[in-house]
């Protein structure tokens, strides 16, 4: 039996099993949405596949209920750990009134929910980065001092808002975790056409804080590094920029055809490092899971996904006239 790496970083057996559950739930919810899309039942999917380890590993490092999340559209793993349910995902996919993210107003992947401490997100990339900084600033003013998670793709790290937000956080030493999910592509544009630096983490020094690049396929390593960063943030030691390196296993979205811009071999190669498979292997290698318990959790997840799909499919749409609501408050 291999050594329990997770213990060294302070994760209990139960926690890593929970991590696996969340990763799998995210994956299966995602896969189901693709099926529904191909069946013409939901108009759009944007995926977390290949990024679940980074997301779940990162999410576990935060204090749920106290800390804040400003996630990006792939962060299904984050929002599940933050408290959203399979139903919530499916209500959004089907654009039903009960969708907690937007009441059916936004595309899937546009997360939000005050009760989950998840800030409402939009489509223009990277706008959430200054928001995270603002939440941290407010947190300092009110003495609540949450640590704030914000994430973005490596392509999106080229937006001005990344720079301006990171710089602001650096100057004010705010507890913000800038989490870059580097999945090698921005839609069809490969890394080499997006940036010329070795690692997105190299940008941190320009803001006067720490930058770290890690293997985004390893949830334990992600947890360790994010946890450290969260601790530093809580101790007033300022922000951290973390680049988690991974691979997007599916097309950019249901509107994309990735065969145009990357070879099947490349994708197959990446699938060998599928974080879910790797993590299952780890759990087995340390004796926390066997084929039977693996099936068990899979079945549990599938049941959840089924139930959520049924529920959401049958839930009512918002009324047409509700289009006019929530423009201004009272």
């Amino acid at each position: 039996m291999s050594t329990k790496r997770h213990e060294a970083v302070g994760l209990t057996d139960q926690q890593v099993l929970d991590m696996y559950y969340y990763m799998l739930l995210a994956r299966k919810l995602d896969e189901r949405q693709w099926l529904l899309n191909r069946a013409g039942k939901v108009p759009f999917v944007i995926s977390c596949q290949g990024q679940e380890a980074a997301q779940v590993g990162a999410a576990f490092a935060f204090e749920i209920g106290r800390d804040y999340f400003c996630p990006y559209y792939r962060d299904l793993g984050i929002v599940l750990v933050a408290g959203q349910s399979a139903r919530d995902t499916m209500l959004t996919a089907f654009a039903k009134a009960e969708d907690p993210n937007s009441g059916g107003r936004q595309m899937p992947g546009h997360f939000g929910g005050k009760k989950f401490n998840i800030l409402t997100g939009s489509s223009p990339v990277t706008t959430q980065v200054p928001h995270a900084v603002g939440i941290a600033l407010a947190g300092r003013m009110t003495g609540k001092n949450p640590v704030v998670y914000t994430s973005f793709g490596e392509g999106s790290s080229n937006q001005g808002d990344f720079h301006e937000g990171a710089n602001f956080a650096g100057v004010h030493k705010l507890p913000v975790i800038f989490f870059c999910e580097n999945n090698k592509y921005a839609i069809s544009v490969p890394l080499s056409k997006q940036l010329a630096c070795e690692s997105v983490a190299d940008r941190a020094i320009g803001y006067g804080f720490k930058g770290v690049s890690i293997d985004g396929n390893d949830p334990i390593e992600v947890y360790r590094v994010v946890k450290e960063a969260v601790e530093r943030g809580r101790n007033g030691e300022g922000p951290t920029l973390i680049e988690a390196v991974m691979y997007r296993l599916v097309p950019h979205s249901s509107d994309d055809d990735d065969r145009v811009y990357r070879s099947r071999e490349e994708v197959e190669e990446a699938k060998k490092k599928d974080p879910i498979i790797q993590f299952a292997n780890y759990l087995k290698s340390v004796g926390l899971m066997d084929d039977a318990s693996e099936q068990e959790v899979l079945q549990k997840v599938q049941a959840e996904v089924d139930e959520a799909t049924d529920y959401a499919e049958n839930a009512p749409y918002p009324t047409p006239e509700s289009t006019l609501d929530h423009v201004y408050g009272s």
Partner: protein
Amino acid sequence: MAVMTFIEAVTLAMREEMRRDPSVFLLGEDVGIRGGVFRASMGLIEEFGEERVIDTPLAESAIAGVAIGAAAVGMRPIAEMQFADFIMPAVNQIVSEAAKMRYRSAGDWNCPITIRAPFGGGVHGALYHSQSVEAMFNSTPGLKIVAPSTPYDAKGLLKAAIRDNDPVLFFEHKRCYRLIKGEVPDTDYVLPIGKADVKREGTDITVISYGLTLHFALQAAEKLAAEGISAHVLDLRTLYPLDKDAIIQAASKTGKVLVIHEDNKEGGIGGEVAAIVAENCLFDLDAPVRRLCGPDVPAMPYSPPMEKFFMITPEKVLEAMRELALF
């Protein structure tokens, strides 16, 4: 009741709100120890400290974006854009984020942010320190745009903006800052956002304006009264969403409408005002709806003869009003 300048009224409103509510804070370039390049925040850092009067890095998208994040979790930031011209880098944050947070979350989140910006010309500010930018934002539901013309309105409306639960762009005409004085109660009053104000009652022509040019209209109305022409003057105060009822009422009253603004004409606020009149008051009109506006050129030049050519002046206003009355 004290007589004070427009800018003093702005400062007073901020000070009162910051005293009243610890969630109000100010951020922007040079707003701290410098008190703002126009001195709108003079004395605030001394009273409220660096934590609540924040000299930010020079980055407007972050100023807006950080304020939005803070507002979302319950603060009431006042973000200052040093000049309205420099709001452009923050457009994405304002239009895509602040304006849409409530709607996109079906009311779960909201964004009570006030963005103050000095606008307008006639101060040798050249192309990039003279612009009127309100028309860029007047098709963005979710936002409100306020542009007071008097110290009294400035105080009451700025306090309202700060307390408003939605994002408000608050434009202050630079020429009004020290030129326009008026009585301002030191009581805690708020004025309603969304309501225009009849600044002068009249029966022959209706002038609709805001900001600096509103004063020119009032001066001209005074002069025209001596000629026996009675002008009704409506101050829009809120530029978006417009107070349609007030516009319709004011237009119908005289049947002759002149809209005046310093901003250039095509696509300006005046177009929407004229459209509202055309849609609602056609059979009350005795003359075509006129607009007196800045010329359709990119912005105000620096050289004095050109700046003067660009600016709306009291003379131009007087002439346009007289002409309409005689129509």
